[in-house]
């Protein structure tokens, strides 16, 4: 296993390019709309689990309300495109802004609350957002949902075929990976991970813990809102039943199964957990139960998730150090 990780770490650049190339070729090899539908779902969930990973894996703050941001993004896009006929670029940006604002709102209790207490607040947040979606009839049409949401359209082009939608989703994944990767490998990311590992020590070296926590809530909210906007245009019908605490819980499982605080982990875990139940259609009904069992086993055997303890950057640095030493000797 270690050898595999070392190989991946050493060739991470090539592997990333390879994976991207595969993802680009994929819809030309697999053209069935059924397979593409699954692939699109996987890509959207990757964006969601990456964004939640910012909170859970990098900041160390469990959130049980992440589906709320997804829903806020979806409703923003649905309302703006059905009523104002906004193009998708507009709805995507608006969804990010609105979801980001709600991220700020949810982040503010950080000032007073920590850890589990804040987790409970995120749970309540999700429920409140759902109730608003359900009861603000004028805006959301309540349980009737919003139908006939226009398909994705950018610069006058309509993206309706499965393949073109797939590529939009792939662009979002690349964007999310890029943003998360850039953040965690910067001064900001180091501060965030310091807070995760020890917030008292983080404050003692001058990190404004509160400000950084709120910042992560905003960025995570924005990315999830983006996934929501995509979802609304793709699925063309949304109602509040998609964005419940139970959906949030599914996202948590996606985020921690692959590996907390690991980008490849989030991608791998989300892909596995989304594709596996699909390949066993008869098991679909038991999806929740299977997720439940998986998570229990995971917590017992590998509490950090599949790749949670595998830091490819550090593995690569260690290999480099060894190589340098051997070169000298």
């Amino acid at each position, binding site marked *: 296993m270690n050898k595999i990780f070392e190989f991946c770490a050493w060739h991470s650049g090539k592997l990333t390019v390879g994976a991207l190339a595969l993802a680009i070729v994929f819809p030309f090899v697999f053209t069935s709309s059924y397979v593409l539908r699954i692939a699109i779902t996987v890509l959207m969930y990757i964006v969601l689990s990456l964004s939640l990973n910012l909170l859970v894996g990098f900041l160390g703050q469990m959130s049980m309300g992440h589906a709320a941001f997804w829903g806020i993004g979806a409703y923003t896009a649905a309302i703006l495109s059905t009523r104002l006929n906004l193009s998708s670029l507009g709805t995507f940006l608006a969804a990010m802004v609105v979801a980001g604002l709600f991220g700020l709102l949810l982040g503010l209790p950080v000032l007073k609350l920590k850890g589990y207490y804040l987790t409970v607040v995120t749970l309540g947040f999700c429920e409140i957002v759902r109730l608003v979606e359900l009861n603000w009839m004028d805006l959301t049409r309540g349980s009737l949902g919003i139908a006939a949401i226009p398909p994705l359209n950018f610069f006058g082009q309509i993206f309706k075929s499965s393949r073109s939608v797939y590529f939009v989703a792939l662009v979002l994944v690349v964007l999310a990976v890029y*943003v998360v990767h*850039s*953040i965690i*490998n*910067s*001064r*900001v*990311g*180091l*501060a965030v*991970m*310091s807070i*995760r*590992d*020890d917030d*008292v*020590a*983080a*404050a*003692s*070296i*001058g*990190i*404004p*813990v509160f400000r950084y926590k709120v*910042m992560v809530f905003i*960025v995570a909210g924005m990315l999830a809102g983006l996934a929501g906007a995509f979802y609304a245009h793709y699925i063309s019908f949304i109602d509040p039943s998609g964005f419940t605490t139970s959906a949030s819980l599914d996202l948590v499982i996606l985020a921690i199964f692959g590996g907390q*605080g690991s980008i490849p982990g989030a991608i791998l875990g989300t892909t596995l957990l989304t594709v596996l139940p699909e390949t066993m259609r008869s098991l679909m009904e038991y999806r929740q139960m299977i997720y439940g069992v998986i998570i229990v086993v995971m917590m017992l055997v590998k509490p950090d998730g599949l790749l949670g303890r595998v*830091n490819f950057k*550090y593995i690569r*640095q*260690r290999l480099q*150090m060894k190589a340098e030493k051997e070169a000298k000797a």
Partner: protein
Amino acid sequence: MSEVLKVSGVTQRFGGLVALDNISIHIGQGEIVGIIGPNGAGKTTLFNVITGIYHPTEGQVFLEDTEITTYKTHEIAKAGFARTFQNIRLFGKLSVMDNVIAGMHTRRKTNLFDAIFQTGRRRREGREAQEKAEKLLKLMDLWEDRHSLASSLPYGHQRRLEIARALAAEPKLLLLDEPAAGMNEQETEELREMVLQLKQMGLTIFLIEHDMKFVMNICERIYVLNHGVLIAQGTPAQVSQNQAVIEAYLGEED
């Protein structure tokens, strides 16, 4: 001599317990000052008050001429105090190198924008951070460990890493809470040499330590705390002959 730290008339109560009782101390630029006292005397509490983890019930704390009594911990760090912890607090899932670079937080400037748009400033700052970390890690003899996880280090190295991380903030005053605790004799000796080296570099140091030999050897002045009260102060020689100090130690320990 200009004063880096001044604590004046600080009292810290926890419910009925008076952990610090009207404490006044001062530390001048370039000094190494120790604080000793039996378990539960209030030494760590004093550090916590100085670094803003507690805000004292009464009294004031100054950094040079600025009153910082009500500052938050991260503001005090930015203003120039850096510390280590009695019960080591490292960033366990980060590498040794990243722990030190995290320590430079207040000395670096790149923000979310630089991070996402990979600005030139970010690259420059990253390189500078690496170079500075290399110096600090070599100074604390941790260079070989640089890519290991902080949590995987042996105990003595963890203590030194905490010092390296605090130094990375380029503090005006370095506060060390029992830096030699849990170290064997050889490690303690190595640590002593490192601390002396820091002094030569012009650093001002305030340290808590139970290892008497260590304190007496290294400090120019010593404060003695017992049950929250300052019972003595002076040079190592003066303090070790002070009757109240001898009684406090005989009464509590050994």
